[in-house]
């Protein structure tokens, strides 16, 4: 499983795409390589519910306030739907 922590929705989408369907920018070693890995963002409920709440708050809390989480979740879910994990 890949857990992303980036804050920009477009970047999250690109990274998610890279580890599922393959590098959409064709600039790295995963260009044309479809890994089909399950991918989540660290702020998604599937991940945060498994984390110790105080550690999560300490490490991610402020970053989550700064992030456009609705957009991030929308982007990463769309990638998962387009390329389901193998």
């Amino acid at each position, binding site marked *: 499983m890949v857990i992303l922590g980036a804050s920009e929705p477009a*970047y999250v989408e690109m990274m998610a795409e890279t580890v599922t369907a393959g590098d959409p920018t064709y600039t790295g070693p995963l260009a044309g390589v479809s890994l089909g890995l399950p991918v989540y963002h660290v702020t998604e409920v599937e991940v945060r519910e498994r984390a110790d709440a105080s550690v999560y708050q300490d490490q991610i809390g402020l970053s989550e306030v*700064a992030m456009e989480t609705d957009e991030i979740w929308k982007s990463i879910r769309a990638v998962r739907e387009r390329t389901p994990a193998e």
Partner: protein
Amino acid sequence: MTSTAMPTVRGIACVLAHTPGLLQYGSKPTRELAKDGALIANIRGRLRSFDDAVAYGPNQVFIGRHAPEWLWDVPEPWWRHGDEGASERGPAGRIVSEDAFWGLLRMADEFGIVDVAAERLARSRELLAAGGLFSDAELARLSAPAEKTSSADGALTLHAADGTAVGRVANGYAGDTSQTADILLENLACKASGALALKELLAQLRMDPAEVEYVLGCGEEAVGDRYQRGGGAISKAMAEMAGCTEATGSDVKAFCCAPVHALVLAGALVESGIYRNVVVVGGGSLAKLGMKMLGHLSKDMPLLEDCLAAVAILVGPADGTGVRMRLDAVGKHTVGSGGSAGAIYEALVARPLDKLGLRIVDVDRYAVELHNPEITVPAGSGNVPRTNYRMIAALAVSRGEMKRADLDGFERAHGMPGFVPTQGHIPAALPYLAHALPRLRDGSLRRALFVAKGSLFLGKMTNMADGMSVLLDRED
């Protein structure tokens, strides 16, 4: 410390050397060309002309011709919408062409390492003489042939943007892996561009070079030899090239936040009374030319990382302008601060402001890592300043100093668009001094916080990052 005794920033020069021919010797292009030599044609086909580099909006902001906020209104992509009123000279600095830079490289070389064709040097001499920063005596060496005292083995060929060979760079001491031609070129490019910034600063301030007492280098190059790779003091080499006969210097190394460390140290040297005139200088980073080029090539964009950027900043005692460097509230990320993003911003922003009893929104402008997003976004590296502004805004929200609803507007209200080439340490906050200083002096800005972070972990000595911040304000 009494408030009137606080040191101030007396001036800043920001210079660019447009070096499209040298782009192929950036780290990324070098590695890609080693895999596929045919890529050179794609690279050369995507290089910008000097006129395009001058007209490029972010470059005009860098030399002070426009405020950073002006870029909000320039349509994107900025590279398609050049500034019609652009100039090579701005209130903060200038942009020099590669034709002039060949001469600067030759002038920076004391060991016969760089050999440039005589007709190229003649053209450089003409351009540099017209630029007015260098005297006839300083330019005289451009008429003399290179001494060719160094080893010719492994020499590297210098090319103009169109691929024409214009000269060569020799290795240093034979067999010394710290002085191969590519490393020496990197170091000489840093020295030449840093010395240009220093010259520009002295000219701007109409200052006698002999008044400079100490120079702190804050670049990232490893200047040395096999026994002390990274031995340093490129600062003194730059001081010599700029004619600062009474100066010595040393280098401050802390990855991208070295410039803020250096600024604070400069302030401390002045505050302590050891020196009156201390210059912080950062030369350009050849290694970072073309760093994001694969992203740019894949999007049919010009290769925007075609300029070496350098800055020089004079720190001195209070000068009657009322602008103060607040050494009583320096922000630093300590070993014990913790590595989360929240901990870093707490250390660099909240703690120093708490010392002064200020809220985050009391700072008019935050200068963060001011990387030009048009360079980084297409390569998947995100909008660096925007990410910083959102974190500072989130900190303000978490401290109850700002409503969550105002978070999106923080970037425009207290930040600025990135306008600095991705030259590592150079985008680290300080180029905003060119815009902040006049505004602090005229009272249209009261406070600006300069915040920089450094990726120490890249050196594989620690997993830690680093960071420093310093506030400049106007004494009421």
